[in-house]
């Protein structure tokens, strides 16, 4: 009121001000209207999108095939939490429909197939492919959904983990072996030099150049296994490789030793994929209804160690079959044997709920909730029981908690419950329970799975690698220290041939091999460098480099290692190893037996081949080094003696003072030692 009066008073003062003020108020009102209008429009749009989008799930009535529908109803009647078989059949039907050209109908069926199963990812991936082909961004959602399904159930997650573990360990092993072989090729001339020198002094035939080949052949004939070969290679190459290469080798050895020590001795994942293990049998109650076969499989478990879990599983199955008295008996036994099985309390509560004893039911759920206060099913069932007891406030609070603790996630994991009118929800084994059961069961298994897969190839048990690999490095290091100086092999500064202190010629201030030394013998000073360069041109660029280069191309990444791009080289080898393994196994090592349509997938093969081809192309695109090397050489008459000391012991790239620098490798422009300057 006071403000209004003030405004009126001000208006009387000046008309102009008043008019402006009115205009301002009008504008403000119009802005407010615009905002309101915008909000309404947004709300309408939002609501229309929300309601136009299919919010209702697919129902069993959408299944057109009467036989499948009847089978599905039967499965639902037996309390199946997911309808995997129906989902797979509808998926097959959808594929046929799409092949027939009716992709809209096919898509509808795919959506239904997707909704029926919690861990069958094929419909989601096919939907993603269809959306991608129609340039629709929804393909990302379907793709992520597929990935989620691949890790949702205990079985799928276990399968994925064990496959990743196997692939990574084997790929790591292949990478180490290939890397060592590549290093052997790279430094073969150095390894061979000294033995060849000794051999050639005493033996004329077989020729010394075949010495390395003979040793390799002998070792291969002995079939000692890849592990022993790898250990031998580590011992041999350790003395000659560069610091960077040693670092990479050490990283690989540490990773493999770590795998050998920890993962190699762990079998916890095996029971999860073994179709008749106790873990797998018990986990069936999370996947299937209470059919006779499942009950039979669980009844067969007679191990006292797992009696509580067995009784819980049987109780749950009996509850699903509506045999409430039997179910109650099993579940009671279960909780008396193991009083922290909250799922047993929930299902016991469910039986009381069905019998109409809501207080007892509530007591059961509260027991479960006291063991695990974040149990969404317990809270949901408390909420439902409270409704029955007309205690709506409590019900509302419990249902809110159930929402917070992930009841939606539970529904996604058990999609079949959305097809029935389930007032209350039953509970199976949780993933953590199954993991614990698997760990207990795995204690009985002493065989290491990875040994079983690669045992024939590596000969030594993989579980020994954690100490054998570091020992081989230690031996390599000791050998390097014990090697006499005469065995210290380095490269000729001109042609890169290996030379040792016994055969080096360092008269000219650089380290020359026998052949280079022979060539310049008796030449005038000005001709020395010309002759050396000519030899270098002929020896290196035409012969040695090309043959070594070809050998390094035998595996992707070899050329990177040759050109000292060691880290990227090893990475390429690792990726290529994974691609090769995937190609050999047509995917992962273990496959889900429930969902294997065909034994061969062209798309997968194309993918792995593409990766391999890319790796090969990357490898071949590394340019062949011309081995340009600048060094200084003095003509004989101007050579400065360094107080009688030979230079090769000091440094590999000796630089004599006051001399001409010659760049080797620019052969076509070369015209003599002094001409080169001009």
């Amino acid at each position: 009121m006071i403000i209004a009066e003030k405004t009126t008073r001000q208006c009387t003062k000046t008309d102009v001000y008043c008019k402006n003020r009115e205009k301002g108020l009008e504008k403000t009102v119009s802005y407010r209207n615009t905002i309101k209008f915008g909000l309404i429009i947004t709300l309408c749009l939002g609501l229309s999108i929300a309601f136009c989008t299919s919010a209702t799930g697919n129902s069993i009535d959408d299944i057109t095939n009467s036989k499948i529908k009847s089978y599905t109803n039967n499965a639902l009647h037996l309390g199946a939490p997911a309808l995997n078989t129906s989902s797979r059949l509808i998926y097959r039907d959808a594929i046929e429909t799409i092949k027939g050209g009716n992709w809209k109908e096919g898509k509808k069926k795919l959506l239904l197939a997707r909704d029926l199963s919690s861990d069958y990812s094929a419909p989601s991936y096919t939907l993603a492919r269809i959306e991608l082909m129609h340039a629709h961004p929804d393909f990302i959602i379907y793709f992520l959904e597929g990935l989620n399904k691949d890790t949702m159930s205990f079985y799928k997650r276990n399968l994925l983990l064990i496959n990743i573990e196997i692939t990574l360990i084997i790929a790591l092993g292949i990478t180490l072996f290939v890397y060592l072989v590549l290093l052997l090729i790279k430094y073969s001339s150095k390894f061979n030099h000294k033995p060849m020198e000794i051999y050639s002094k005493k033996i004329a035939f077989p020729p010394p150049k075949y010495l390395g080949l003979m040793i390799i052949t002998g070792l291969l004939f002995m079939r000692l296994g890849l592990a022993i070969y790898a250990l031998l290679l580590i011992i041999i190459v350790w003395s000659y490789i560069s610091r960077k290469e040693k670092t990479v080798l050490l990283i690989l050895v540490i990773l493999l030793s770590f795998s050998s020590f920890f993962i190699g001795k762990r079998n916890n994942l095996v029971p999860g994929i073994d179709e008749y293990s106790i873990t797998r049998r018990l986990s069936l109650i999370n996947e299937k209804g209470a059919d006779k076969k499942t009950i039979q499989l669980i009844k067969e478990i007679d191990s006292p160690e797992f009696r509580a879990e067995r009784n819980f599983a049987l109780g749950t199955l009996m509850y699903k079959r509506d045999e409430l008295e039997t179910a109650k008996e099993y579940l009671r036994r279960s909780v008396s044997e193991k009083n922290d099985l909250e799922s047993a309390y929930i299902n016991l509560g469910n039986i009381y709920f069905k019998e109409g004893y809501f207080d007892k039911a509530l007591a059961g759920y509260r027991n479960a909730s006291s063991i695990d206060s974040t149990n969404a099913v317990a809270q949901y069932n408390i909420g439902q029981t409270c409704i029955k007891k007309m205690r709506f406030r409590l019900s509302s609070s419990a249902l809110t908690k159930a929402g917070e603790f992930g009841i939606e996630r539970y529904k996604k994991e058990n999609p079949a419950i959305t097809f029935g009118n389930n007032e209350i929800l039953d509970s199976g084994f949780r993933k953590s329970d199954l993991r614990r059961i698997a760990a207990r069961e795995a204690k009985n298994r002493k065989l290491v799975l990875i040994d079983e897969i690669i045992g024939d190839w590596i000969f030594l048990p993989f579980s020994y690698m954690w100490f054998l690999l570091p020992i081989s490095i230690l031996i390599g290091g000791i050998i390097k220290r014990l090697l006499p100086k005469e065995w210290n092999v380095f490269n000729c500064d001109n042609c890169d041939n290996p030379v040792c202190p016994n055969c080096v010629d360092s008269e000219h201030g650089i380290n020359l091999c026998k052949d280079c030394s022979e060539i310049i013998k008796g030449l005038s000073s000005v001709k020395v460098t010309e002759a050396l360069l000519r030899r270098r041109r002929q020896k290196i660029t035409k012969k040695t480099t090309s043959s070594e280069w070809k050998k390094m191309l035998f595996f992707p990444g070899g050329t990177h290692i040759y050109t000292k791009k060691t880290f990227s080289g090893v990475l390429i080898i690792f990726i290529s190893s994974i691609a090769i393994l995937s190609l050999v196994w047509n995917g992962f090592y273990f496959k889900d037996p429930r969902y294997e349509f065909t034994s061969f997938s062209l798309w997968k093969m194309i993918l792995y081949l593409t990766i391999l081809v890319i790796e090969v192309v990357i490898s071949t695109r590394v340019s062949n080094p011309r081995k340009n090397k600048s060094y200084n050489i003095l003509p004989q008459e101007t050579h400065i003696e360094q107080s009688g000391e030979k230079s090769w012991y000091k440094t590999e790239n000796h630089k004599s003072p006051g001399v001409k620098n010659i760049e080797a490798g620019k052969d076509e422009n070369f015209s003599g030692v002094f001409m080169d300057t001009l």
Partner: protein
Amino acid sequence: MAFEGDVKDFGLSEIFQLISVQQKSGMLLVNCEKKIAIFFHDGMIVSTRDRRDRTRDPLKDYLLRYGFLNRSEMNNLQQIQIETKLDLTEIMLSEKYYSEDELKTIFTDQIYETIQEILSWPKSHYKFISGNKLLQGVKNFSSIRVDAVLMESMRRIDEFPRLKTTFPSLEMMFKNIAKQDNKLPELTRNEDFIYELLEEEMKLSELISKGKMASFNIYEALKGLLEKELLQIARESIPEIETPLHKEKNEIYSGKRVLPTFATLLTLLACLFIGEFAIPSVLAPGWPLHSVQANPNRYIASTTKTYLAGNLEEIKTRQLEKKVRSALSEYMAERKSYPLTLEILSIRGFIPEETCTRANQAGFKYKLDKNSQSYLLNRE
């Protein structure tokens, strides 16, 4: 402030001119076959000696290459340099190897030759760093104008190939022609010096190493002398034939032949025997697994019955069984009855044919009951 680039984008001669016109002081680093530093002061070239890199002194090279100093003299100078830490030019002056004027000439010629070398590089990378601070400690005997250096260098680059066709080999022998009346035509300073040197027959390479001037000047002087008929080529060198140096050597090893061959063959046979019989009999491939399978009680911890598959093969067989059972369930769901045989599953596309074959190989026996509503799948 610094600018840099490649010669292919912006030529070195232009860079030189730019520095000259702008009268800049600083260091131009040119990097190709080797790294050379050129120092400018107010747009004039003052030195090409990089004091940071003592192992590669272009002046030292120049002095040795063209015989200004011999090996022992250079040894002495270096010894003094190590002891006194003085610059080479300062020692040469103090030890009176050359006067300051002579040193200035040598220094200038050396700069000419270095610049000429840089300009002849087809590809190079340059970087100019501006600032007077960079010139601190740079020994300077003369400041040379950039345009003079460029013109001279271009002339040398143009003319040198022609001189080389006249004197193609370093093995060519020369001798001067003495005039009977001792009346020589007018000779340049270089021609005069070379003429005197050629009192005795000398190879071109030898002449270069004793000529005390840049090789281009020697060639030019020789050409001048030849035109003035004061030079005779004593012996034409034989054109060089590039003999293949990597010809196949008939390596003749002096050692034994028969005994080592037998020994090698025997060793290889022994290796084969070890690989084929000895090792498999002691430790068969996959021996850790076989030992477990042979003695399961040793490895299975408890006395309780284990439901876990004993080995990998068993896991795979169980998976195979699961696959067949899943397919049978699907068949039942779709057709309301189980198939008559497993082959029907593969025919209808429920399992691949390979799975059916594997199931048969694994010894699975499928039996259908009379009303086709249940089945038995057992392993033999």
